[in-house]
């Protein structure tokens, strides 16, 4: 970013997370299934890892068919593949790390139980994201019924990053303003700016056209800027 005297210009891609390369998440670029995990060690772990590696490259339809038959390793590959996107949506919805993990876990458990009913008319990811959006909406309704807990969840998100007091005050105001946005706008802008998802990924998760995502993000940033500017 530089000031040319008459106005501020920005080079393409200049604004990225923490001055580094923008962190994008794609469902197929998640952590290696069964990768070094201290919680799962020993012979059983290596056997599971071996089984997961055999199915890691399989497409969704194959994995869903295996998982429907009770193959937990196939389901684990699907969880690894789509966990980042589901968690991003949940975090953007709840603004709480703990609640986001609960929502993500609940989503996958509901998916596991519902695999028998999944007919494959739509992509597995579309079905899964639909389940995730429903869980997020449920969580938001419950939080709305308990405003104190909602405020706590907001604070939970704000306290996570260190920084200078003035900067934290601004960040707090911006995150608080984001928390008051309509859910679709909040999800879109936080998935983009905090979680680092691309427009296409957000469109897939929200099940809307990319143009709608662009509008939601632009409107969200404008609303936050206006609210923080007035304060």
């Amino acid at each position, binding site marked *: 970013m530089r000031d040319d005297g008459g106005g501020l*210009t920005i080079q393409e891609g200049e604004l990225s997370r923490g001055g580094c390369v923008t962190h994008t998440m794609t469902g197929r670029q998640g952590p290696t299934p069964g990768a070094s995990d201290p919680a799962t060690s020993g012979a059983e772990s290596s056997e599971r890892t071996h089984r997961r590696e055999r199915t890691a490259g399989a497409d969704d339809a194959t994995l869903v068919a295996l998982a429907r038959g009770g193959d937990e390793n*196939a389901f684990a590959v699907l969880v690894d593949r789509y966990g980042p996107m589901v968690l991003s949506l949940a975090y953007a919805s709840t603004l709480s790390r703990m609640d986001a993990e609960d929502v*993500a876990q609940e989503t996958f458990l509901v998916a596991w139980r519902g695999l028998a009913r999944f007919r494959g008319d739509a992509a597995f990811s579309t079905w899964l994201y639909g389940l995730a959006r429903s869980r997020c909406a449920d969580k938001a309704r419950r939080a709305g019924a308990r405003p104190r807990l909602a405020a706590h969840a907001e604070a939970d998100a704000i306290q996570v*990053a260190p920084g200078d007091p003035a900067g934290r005050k601004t960040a707090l105001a911006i*995150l608080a303003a984001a928390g008051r946005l309509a859910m679709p706008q909040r999800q879109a802008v936080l998935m983009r700016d905090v979680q680092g998802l691309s427009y296409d990924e957000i469109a897939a998760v929200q099940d809307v056209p990319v143009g709608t995502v662009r509008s939601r993000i632009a409107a969200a940033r404008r609303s936050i800027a206006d609210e923080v500017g007035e304060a």
Partner: protein
Amino acid sequence: MSEHLTDVQLSRLIDGDLSLTSREAVTVHLRGCPACAERHDQIIAVAATLRSEPAHAWTSAMTSSVIHELPRRRRTVRVGIAAGVSAAMCGLVLLEAAPVVAAALGLLGVLAGASVAVTHPAVAVSGSPLLAIMAVAILAPLAAYPLARWR
């Protein structure tokens, strides 16, 4: 470009989502329009602040946690099924109809198990504990059958 820039144009510029031609046009406009430049600064400040927040990343431990939850729920179902079968068999023992029913159930079980093993090998493996529990649930009342007759 004489009119002011839209919020979408400014956001897409920040995200590097504009074509080269559009980006140049927007950049030229920003240089000559203080109002749009000010809005651009406000929006870029919001995006920069949000991007400085740490992302919540998925970890393999979270996958393990999800998978760990699956068998526990299925064990509950298994125990429920086995308890139901066992209770039904105990009832049949009292009615002295257990041998005929057990033979029919056993035959059906063998046929169903063979069918599943061929079409869904994964189920045959993961379902073996259930089959074992079912076998015990059926055989235990059968073992009690002579006792019931003797009494």
